[in-house]
């Protein structure tokens, strides 16, 4: 057969085969389209009532912890599942830990879609994600009686409003930290007393703040002290005028910022190389920089600070609930709390962890403020998801979606 004959015989059938395949795929695509609704990161199956009630509120938590299922799937921040404390857990309980690391609260929310998709058991979400997960129906009530160390948690973290709604717990608080002010001791021989330094032209081009829309709350916190006329009481519940004022402040600050840091190591590099002299940070960065011999220090200025508090929340469709409860019990014990706090550079929720921290690393309890009384932390406004519904019941507040849009406008 010549090439021409070969080609001619095949001329019509390939077109047919393409058509056939397309026809086969069409119904698939159509069902995929309607199925994508269920697949999308926001749960569409439930339409929440106007008076927001967490969809899973009625799910009764289990009464006892049974035999472990052999596996545990976590969504965690990098550094929250270190071998140091994971290995003993695996040996003790026989639950193999698989960790999916997420880089942002929103990634966590996205991964937990559909109740964890039947794949994940626990998520170590920060306060700005918790409410989204709870009201999205992606997490379910937890029985705190199955977590012996829960009673040892600091009182204000036992039932905080970012993981406990209507008296129902959706998770166990884990660790927390302030978004404090990090500064170079060369540029600031005396510790700054006000957040005004990061809004000041004096340090133009040498300032860094996180690349996170929740920063609008930090601006709001600053304004709550410096522009009392606005009447800001809760930096996460802002009416439109209050919101606009905060956004304006940030737009002015944009010209002064050298870089909006995304990763902790970004900020560490910035300080190490002398690119910036002051910025908003976590105690983690301070620890790393001091460890590298850099001359820095951190402080919480007079206006107070925002902070983050992480909780382990239980997925609605957790495939390994017994292992999940075993983990909750384990991770809240004083020893493990101390290990994690020192390793990561954060403050443990368990009030008995302090002396154990100093055993691991001398002075760590003090530098991470684990020795302070509860009242010290009153000045910290912990992250929570801004919702359209304010605490007073009125729908005046600006929802987080708009925070993201505004942030895109601020940073351009």
């Amino acid at each position: 057969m010549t090439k021409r004959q070969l080609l001619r015989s095949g001329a019509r059938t390939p077109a047919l085969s393409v058509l056939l395949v397309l026809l086969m795929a069409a119904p698939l695509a159509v069902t995929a389209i309607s199925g994508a609704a269920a697949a999308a990161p926001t749960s569409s199956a439930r339409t929440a009532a106007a008076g927001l009630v967490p969809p899973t509120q009625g799910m009764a938590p289990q009464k006892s912890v049974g035999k472990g299922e052999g596996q545990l799937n976590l969504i965690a921040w990098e550094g929250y599942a270190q071998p140091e404390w994971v290995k003993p857990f695996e040996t003790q309980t026989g639950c193999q830990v698989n960790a999916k690391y997420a880089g942002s609260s929103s990634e966590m929310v996205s991964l937990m879609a559909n109740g964890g998709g039947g794949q994940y058991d626990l998520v170590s979400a920060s306060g700005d994600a918790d409410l989204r997960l709870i009201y999205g129906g992606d997490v379910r009530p937890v029985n705190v009686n199955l977590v012996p160390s829960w009673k040892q948690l600091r009182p204000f973290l036992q039932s905080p409003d970012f993981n406990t709604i209507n008296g129902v717990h959706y998770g166990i608080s884990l660790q927390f930290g302030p978004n404090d002010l990090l500064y170079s001791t060369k540029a600031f021989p005396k510790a700054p007393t006000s957040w005004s330094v990061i809004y000041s032209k004096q340090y133009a081009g040498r300032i860094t703040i996180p690349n996170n829309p929740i920063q609008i709350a930090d601006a709001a916190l600053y304004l709550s002290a410096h522009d009392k006329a606005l009447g800001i009481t809760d930096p996460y519940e802002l009416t439109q005028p209050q919101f606009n004022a905060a956004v304006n402040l940030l737009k002015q600050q944009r010209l002064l910022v050298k870089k909006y840091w995304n990763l902790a190591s970004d900020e560490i590099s910035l300080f190490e190389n002398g690119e910036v002299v002051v910025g908003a940070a976590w105690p983690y960065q301070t620890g790393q920089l001091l460890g590298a011999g850099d001359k820095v220090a951190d402080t919480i200025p007079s206006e107070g600070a925002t902070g983050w508090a992480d909780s382990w929340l239980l997925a609605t469709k957790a495939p390994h609930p017994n292992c999940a409860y075993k983990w909750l019990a384990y991770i809240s014990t004083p020893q493990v709390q101390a290990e994690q706090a020192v390793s990561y550079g954060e403050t443990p929720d368990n009030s008995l962890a302090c002396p154990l921290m100093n055993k691991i690393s001398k002075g760590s309890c003090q530098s991470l403020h684990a020795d302070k009384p509860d009242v010290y932390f009153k000045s910290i406004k912990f992250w929570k998801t801004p919702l359209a519904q304010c605490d007073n019941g009125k729908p005046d507040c600006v929802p987080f979606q708009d925070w993201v849009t505004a942030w895109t406008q601020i940073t351009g």
Partner: protein
Amino acid sequence: MRAALTLSPPLAWFVVIYLASLVAMLVTAFWTVNPFTNNLQHQFSLANFGDIFKSPIPAIIGRTVVLATCVTLTDAAVAFPFAYFMARVASPRARHALFVAVLLPLWASYLAKVFAWIVILTKDGTLDWTTGSLGLGQPNIAYTKIAMWVVFSYLWLPFMILPIYGALERVPDSLFEASADLGAHNFRTFRSVVLPLALPGVVAGSIFTFSLTLGDYITPLLIGSGSGTNLIGNVIYDNIGLANNLPFAAALAFVPIVVMVVYLLGARAAGAFEAM
């Protein structure tokens, strides 16, 4: 039927897995998210597409396209003499060594390379140190658009060198001889023989450099300053993750898709698909 046999598996793969999922995702662009409950609302709406025209999205889109173009032109200019040398001047052994040298950086992790560039470009970094020692002052270009341009050009350079080399290598010696016989001097030969034959290779490489820059969001995060350095990929990423606003992210996704389809059609017209 033989054709059906050879084409069906790959086509089925493509249509079922890739295209269907792509279409399904793009359809969500026509829906919206309820700001109170964060749930998807399946009513047809063009609101998201309108939002694309709201500041600063158009500026970001423009910035991305301009950057992608600059990177493409830079890489084409840098790669061409290199590829020409490899194809026509280098000895077989040198050619082999150069080929390995071009492929090797592809095996060093993208993230590690970008991180290394921070070390190089930052204040008192390698670049500052070098230019300072030579008395040329200290540019300190980290976290600027110029830094992004340099890093992107660096990352995609091998993808430009290889297709141009491929195209040039296929030009038979006889064509050069014929051109010389007809009385053309070197530059004329280059302009009238080499360039047209190499062009498909350049266009093929440009598909890589253009599209890879168009969709990248990691490099702007690490290398950019965050203010005025966001690209389309960053906004899409923010809206998938941060805002859980999948419809808007999907609407945004139309932009690079449309840009690339137009680019691909042009590339095909220029014969690039023969040269990849």
